[in-house]
């Protein structure tokens, strides 16, 4: 029921208080009314009986000495009691001796003869017969007829009084109960508001402390303790993150310094190998037979290949340290520029480029050029065996980011090796099939991620591959960790 469950706790408390007090008062009123109407009749009966007894005692001499005039005087004294309607005195034989009727009474006449002793109610009329006794002698009978207030009229009056009392007490109780209930519901509401602020992330939100020792006080206290321990835990967590990040950065720097020095130091012996192989080839060629010359050239080409690997490794590790210089970049022009460079450098057959206008980007132009170079040369390379090799470049934007798409109709790859696609020196094809060191896509990923973007790809073996990368449109995350 919405009326019971939905209003605030304050109204629920007020409602509960009022309903309880109304019920209690109605119940008490009903009991009082029933009790009173019972007692009222009893009381009236006793009153009228007492009056009748007094009258009976008063008229004994009048009866004995046959003085109806004196009896009338006693009867007329009943006029003082407005409830007595009619009265009469009967002699021993039951004949009327003297009678009285209240002035103005219409419907009531006294019985012609006395009836047996007793009292009974006829509706709200009380009829009483009592004996007249003098020193143990029975002299006659007194009759009294009293008109009491009807029970219905009495109940009606009672209901009116109860209603008045009810309204009066409600007028007092409602403001008091609202006041008192506010003392319960206000702290609860405050706790609820604070809890939702904390949920929204404001760990500094707090509930004002209270001196109350009741359940509300306990709740406020417990809540405060919960918030402070939450705050403490959050602080610990943050400190730990900072600590770990620092450790990670240190380890990362170390690793990069290591790989840089390793690649750098590898070059010297490599250059020596290549240099001495070259001297051997030029100065001692006549002494070598054909097989010797061939082996020497294998040594030289492998040392050159290793040199290229080391170059790529150096370039990759440099990427992590190089600061990003954000500028507005026309991506369409950049793609055209890169495409023409690739195709003067190392022609890959009759590739065609299909390019639509690309959304501009905010980024480091030289790094973005590296991205395009790697992606476009990959696309050219893997589609070069097709009869009609084709590379499509397109892009679109929404309010958050720009997404660029490079699609070729080349060899493609198996999606089950997707996890290795962007790893350093990870290759899905052999060098014999397609030359390369396996660093290109790792570089692409590192540059895009450092710009705050994402890289992903889709492919099927033999049906070409599509690479995507996105760049955020507004805030560039230039300070992103340099360790990816």
């Amino acid at each position, binding site marked *: 029921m919405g009326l019971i469950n939905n209003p605030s706790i304050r109204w629920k408390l007020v409602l509960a208080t009022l309903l309880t007090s109304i019920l209690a008062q109605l119940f008490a009123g009903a009991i009082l009314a029933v009790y009173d109407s019972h007692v009222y009749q009893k009381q009236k009966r006793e009153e009228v009986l007492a009056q009748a007894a007094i009258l009976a005692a*008063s008229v*004994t*001499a*009048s*009866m*004995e*000495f*046959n*003085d109806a005039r*004196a009896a009338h005087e006693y009867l007329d004294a009943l006029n003082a009691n407005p409830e007595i309607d009619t009265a009469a005195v009967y*002699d*021993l*034989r039951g*004949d009327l001796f003297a009678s009285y009727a209240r002035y103005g009474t219409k419907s009531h006449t006294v019985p012609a003869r006395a009836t047996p002793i007793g009292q009974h109610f006829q509706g709200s009329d009380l009829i009483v017969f009592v004996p007249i006794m*003098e*020193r*143990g*002698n029975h002299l006659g009978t007194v009759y009294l007829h009293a008109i009491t207030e009807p029970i219905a009229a009495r109940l009606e009056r009672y209901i009116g009084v109860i209603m008045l009392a009810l309204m009066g007490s409600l007028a007092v109780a409602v403001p008091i109960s609202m006041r008192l209930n506010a003392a319960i519901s206000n702290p609860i509401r405050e706790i609820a508001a604070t809890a939702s602020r904390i949920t929204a992330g404001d760990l500094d939100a707090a509930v004002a402390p209270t001196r109350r020792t009741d359940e509300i006080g306990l709740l406020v206290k417990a809540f405060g303790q919960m918030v402070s321990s939450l705050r403490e835990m959050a602080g610990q967590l943050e400190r730990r993150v900072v600590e770990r990040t620092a450790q990670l950065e240190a380890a990362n720097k170390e690793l990069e310094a290591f790989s840089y020095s390793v690649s750098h130091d590898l070059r010297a012996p490599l250059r020596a190998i290549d240099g001495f192989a070259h001297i051997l080839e030029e100065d001692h060629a006549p002494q070598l037979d054909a097989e010797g010359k061939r082996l020497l050239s294998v040594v030289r080409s492998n040392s050159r290949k290793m040199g290229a690997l080391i170059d790529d490794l150096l370039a990759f590790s440099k990427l992590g340290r190089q600061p990003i210089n954000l500028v507005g970049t026309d991506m369409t022009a950049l793609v055209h520029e890169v495409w023409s460079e690739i195709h003067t450098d190392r022609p890959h057959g009759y590739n065609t480029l299909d390019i639509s206008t690309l959304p501009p980007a905010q980024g480091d132009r030289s790094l973005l050029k590296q991205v395009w170079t790697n992606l476009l040369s990959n696309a050219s390379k893997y589609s070069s065996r097709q009869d009609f090799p084709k590379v499509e470049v397109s892009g679109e934007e929404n309010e958050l980011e720009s997404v660029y798409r490079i699609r070729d109709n080349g060899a493609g790859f198996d999606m089950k090796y997707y996890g290795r696609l962007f790893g350093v020196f990870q290759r899905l094809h052999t060098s014999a099939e397609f030359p390369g060191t396996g660093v290109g896509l790792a570089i692409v990923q590192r540059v895009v991620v450092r710009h705050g973007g994402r890289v992903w790809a889709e492919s099927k073996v033999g049906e070409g591959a599509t690479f995507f990368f996105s760049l955020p449109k507004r805030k560039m995350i230039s300070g992103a960790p340099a360790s990816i």
Partner: protein
Amino acid sequence: MPRNTLAQTFVRLTGLTFLAWIITLAPVLAMAAENTSLEYAVKAAYLYKFGNFVEWPAAAFENASSVVNLCVVGEDPFGDILDKVVQGQTIGDRPIRVRRLKTVTRDSGCHILYVGGADTERIAQTLEAVRGANVLTVTDAADTGRSESVIDFVIKDDHVRFNIDAHAASLNGLTISSKLLGLALSVTSGK
């Protein structure tokens, strides 16, 4: 003779029934018949009924249930009516005995004393004789002049009524109920 008529009546009606009947019908009969005997029948009933509204000192009786002596001295206007009326009646727990005396003294043991006749001098002597004794004196001489008795019968509007001399009562050590005083035509409280 009226006495015979009444005697026949008494044969038919006895006890309480008669008493009630006589109380109710006595004024009517008295008025209708102008019969002095009926008047005395009423007076006879009143005589012992007075006893119910009078307090004697405890010394007037031997014990709580000893007899009340109702004495008639002098002229007796009641005949046997008085004996019939009193028969079976009590004053409180005390039975009533009717005694007829020629003369009365303080020591005659009378509690209620009816002094009959119209001889005021003789009445006065009799009353004087019991002055100070615990005797409720009743006379029937109101129409012949002042009496010194405690209760004096009067006929008013064809009803038997009475005067009370509270002073005389107190001289005789009697207390008369206010209910009875209330019915008296006149109450004399002192000289």
